[in-house]
């Protein structure tokens, strides 16, 4: 067996374990929390009174306008100076959640706006109040539109979790770095890490197509293209 293959096979369990223990939970948790934050932010911007929508806009402006790596450093290395001490995983989770929240809020805002005004009127005419119209009529239609762009965010997030290595989270990329430190084989190990990230995002792309297919059952874009 060639040396490179042997090395890859030997290091695979360590890398996969780091993925299962840190990369995947970090991705899933921050996506779910970030998506909820994004929904609240989008609704605040679209329907909130001005101070609320101004706060929402300010939040999106700050997060989108600054590098993710810098945000992580501020949270993990910076906040202790004002007495806020967080463990690395929590700091990363907060950073990624805030980031996902800002980006997805724009996607959700666009998706909600894309539902025709007549659908609100139809919902109101059947007696629904704002909440019922939102939950039963608008969000289901907005979800369908937002599957492709939200999948983009999700897939970016899987890869972005590698930045957590810089704030000492022992996730997939950092465990590759550690093995490199002892084996001096950066090319082999980093390519192996890249392959694992590729595999993870491929799974997500597949889930995206399944979800789009499910939404397509009531007619529209996908069927029109067939």
């Amino acid at each position, binding site marked *: 067996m060639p040396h490179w293959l042997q090395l890859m096979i030997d290091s695979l369990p360590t890398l996969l374990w780091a993925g299962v223990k840190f990369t995947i939970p970090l991705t899933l948790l921050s996506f779910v929390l970030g998506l909820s934050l994004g929904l609240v932010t989008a609704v605040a911007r679209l329907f909130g009174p001005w101070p609320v929508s101004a706060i929402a806009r300010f939040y999106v402006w700050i997060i989108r306008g600054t590098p993710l790596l810098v945000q992580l450093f501020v949270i993990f290395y910076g906040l202790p100076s004002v007495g806020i001490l967080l463990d690395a995983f929590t700091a990363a989770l907060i950073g990624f959640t805030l980031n996902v929240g800002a980006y997805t809020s724009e996607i959700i805002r666009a998706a909600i706006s894309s539902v025709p005004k*007549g659908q609100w*009127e139809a919902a109101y005419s059947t007696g629904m*109040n704002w909440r019922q119209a939102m939950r*039963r009529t608008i969000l289901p*239609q907005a979800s*369908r539109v937002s599957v492709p762009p939200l999948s983009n965010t999700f897939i970016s997030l899987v890869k972005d979790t590698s930045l957590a290595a810089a704030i000492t989270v022992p996730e997939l990329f950092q465990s590759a770095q550690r093995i490199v430190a002892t084996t001096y084989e950066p090319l082999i190990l980093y390519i192996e890490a890249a392959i694992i990230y590729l595999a993870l995002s491929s799974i997500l792309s597949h889930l995206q197509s399944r979800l789009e297919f499910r939404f397509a059952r009531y007619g529209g874009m996908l069927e029109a293209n067939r």
Partner: protein
Amino acid sequence: MIELSHIEKRFGDAVILKDISLSFPEGSVSALVGPSGGGKSTLLRCINLLEQPTAGSVRIGAESVDFAPGRKAPWQSIQKVRSQTGMVFQNFQLFPHRTAIENVMEGLLVVQKWSREKARARAMELLTKVGMEHKADAWPANLSGGQQQRVAIARALAPSPKVLLCDEPTSALDPELSAEVVDVLGTLAKEGTTMVMATHDLRLASQVANLVVFLEAGQVVEIGSAEQVFRNPVHERTRQFVSSINAAQTFSA
């Protein structure tokens, strides 16, 4: 049973409706007719308060709301008036993510909090009434315009509203498809359903309505039976309008 008093509607400086007072008795079928931009759609939408009048009051049965400039009407009383109505739209506005029968069930489940079985039975009964029971499980995207509009009529009737409002119910349909919608509305009218519709479909107005209101520039020009307004209009302006649609329809017939 429906009473509109001194309704005024402005968008900024533009006055859309000027001091309109009308009443529609129970069991009557009224058609609001007139040129585009005359205010018929806005007036119709003032009845279920999708459009809120700048001033005036709207009463349906026992529920009423008053409007005055610079004052917001309470949400609860708007809901109460609106829940007395069912609305049919020009572009159907079925919920695309729900099947035909789910569209009809939606208000019963979400607003009236009926059980699924009870709602399904009621929805099936209404779909049968509009001749759509065979398409109960179809998605709206797979129905013709006429079929979508018939499902929309069933949806509007589901909670047994006091009045059925129709905003240009046949305008998006070709003559053949609009005939099936006119038939359904005609049957409902014979059964005593109170209806108010905004339309410029003369066939619909003359076959179904017993009261015709001619509106222009936000004012009522003439009001009378269909027979009277279409055959012997009193005002010159009504005469002109009626003869123009008559000419158009004679030519197409």
